[in-house]
């Protein structure tokens, strides 16, 4: 710790430089690979760039992007609300707690995402409903488990103090419980967003007629690897940016504002 801020700053700069160098080296290696391997195995950067441009300007493909975003947003919203309802039910109606936390939650957490996809395709056909159903089924246990942690962590003393100031249950809920839950809600959303991307494309590939999963399925059948790379590249950038610029700051903000002082 005697290193001092100057040394720490220099370390950070070296780290950034090396990271940048690493990315550049990968890029150069990718360029150098062009022509040595068939384009369907590893398409050169120029072809992938062309595929990105073609994707972004294509009136046929852009709607697929919005379809995927719509699937993810609605699935996160539905599973968050369902998870919250179940977590509150178990918290406030104790008799339902074992049914929810010891029977439903473990079952859902162990159920395979692919299983949900294949079942949903049979039950609901190829549709957006199938895709959203699958994502909700996978995300629900994450929401349930994380929000339960938040409810367990509620400060009993604080609630008691609140009760000594006023008997309004809604008021104490709004002023004490909800703010204390916000950091957990933010963390839950962040986790759900990450997991949602992992299952959405699979669900769309097998069970959706729309979305990026559908696009990569077509690309796969046509051996159109540049489009495949373009979609994957886009997802990596979008997920990382959303996590860094939206969910990370949201989590930090709610933790700083309302979190426990630890």
């Amino acid at each position, binding site marked *: 710790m005697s290193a001092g801020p100057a040394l720490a700053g220099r370390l950070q700069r*070296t780290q950034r430089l090396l*990271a940048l160098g690493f990315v550049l080296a990968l890029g150069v290696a990718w360029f150098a690979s062009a022509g040595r391997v068939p384009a369907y195995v590893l398409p050169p950067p120029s072809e992938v760039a062309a595929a990105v441009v073609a994707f972004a300007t294509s009136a046929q493909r852009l709607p697929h992007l919005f379809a995927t975003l719509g699937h993810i947003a609605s699935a996160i919203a539905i599973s968050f609300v369902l998870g919250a309802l179940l977590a509150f039910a178990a918290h406030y109606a104790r*008799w339902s707690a*074992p049914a929810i936390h010891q029977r439903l939650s473990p079952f859902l957490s*162990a159920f395979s995402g692919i*299983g949900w996809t294949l079942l949903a395709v049979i039950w609901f056909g190829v549709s957006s409903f199938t895709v959203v159903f699958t994502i909700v089924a996978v995300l629900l246990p994450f929401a349930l488990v994380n929000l339960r942690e938040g409810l367990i962590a509620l400060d009993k003393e604080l609630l008691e103090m609140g009760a000594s100031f006023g008997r309004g249950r809604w008021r104490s809920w709004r002023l004490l419980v909800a703010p204390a839950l916000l950091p957990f809600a933010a963390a839950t959303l962040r986790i759900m967003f990450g997991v949602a991307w992992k299952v959405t*494309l699979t669900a769309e590939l097998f069970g959706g007629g729309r979305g990026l999963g559908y696009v990569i399925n077509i690309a796969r059948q046509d051996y159109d*690897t540049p489009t495949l790379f373009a979609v994957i590249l886009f997802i990596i*950038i979008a997920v990382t940016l959303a996590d860094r610029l939206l969910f990370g700051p949201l989590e930090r903000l709610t933790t700083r504002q309302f979190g426990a002082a630890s």
Partner: protein
Amino acid sequence: MSTGRRSAALWFADTLVVLAIAVWAIGAANLPEFVLPGPVAVGKRLIALFTDSDFLVHTIASTVRVIGSVVIALLIGGGLAVIARAVPVLDGIVSGVIQPFLNAFPSIGWAILAAIWFTPGHFSIVFVQVAILAPFCLINVAEGLRQIDRELLEMATSYTRNRTRIVIRVGLPLLLPYLMGALRIAYGVAWKIALVAELLGSTSGLGFLMLRAQGSADLTTVLAACLAIVALFYAGERLLLEPLSRRFSAK
């Protein structure tokens, strides 16, 4: 009295489970078998998955690959975390480039790429599963390394200059809970998400079995395979991971 109420709630929970199975049975009786097969048929198929050699091949293939992938992913993810910690200048590469890249990479993307790059087989599937699981291990082990008490390491240094000894006697025991955490998360994700590797370019495994059964509208096998995955997941949790983590996370 509190134990009485607890068991009452548990009774209620189990009643709900029985009720759910009853509803399933009644629903199945009124629906065609390719929409919803009954619990008895699914139960029989579930047993067949563990006894009938035609099915057992797939169950074993998936199980062995899941275990292998989890171990390899832990070695690679944990190894990267250790490298970033031991050589701080490389941390920018590991936590700034490799981790977000692997973390955000769509799992089906790996499956498709592996189907293009490799011939179908065990290697291709394990590659996909490791690629999906490694970031989870990396994040957990890196977190464990961050939480290691520097004071304790300093104290150890005051006793001996032998770094290997410090790592084995102090560093590793402090890290074990996080290694166990990484192992459990990776194991869960392997069964739930990484099985997608078996859907493309595979001829064995529960994922392949489910996709083939779905193609022929054999919902009995799809449901039985889903329940087999739930059973295998809990068998691993209860018989292996929980005893291990109890043993290693005790102070």
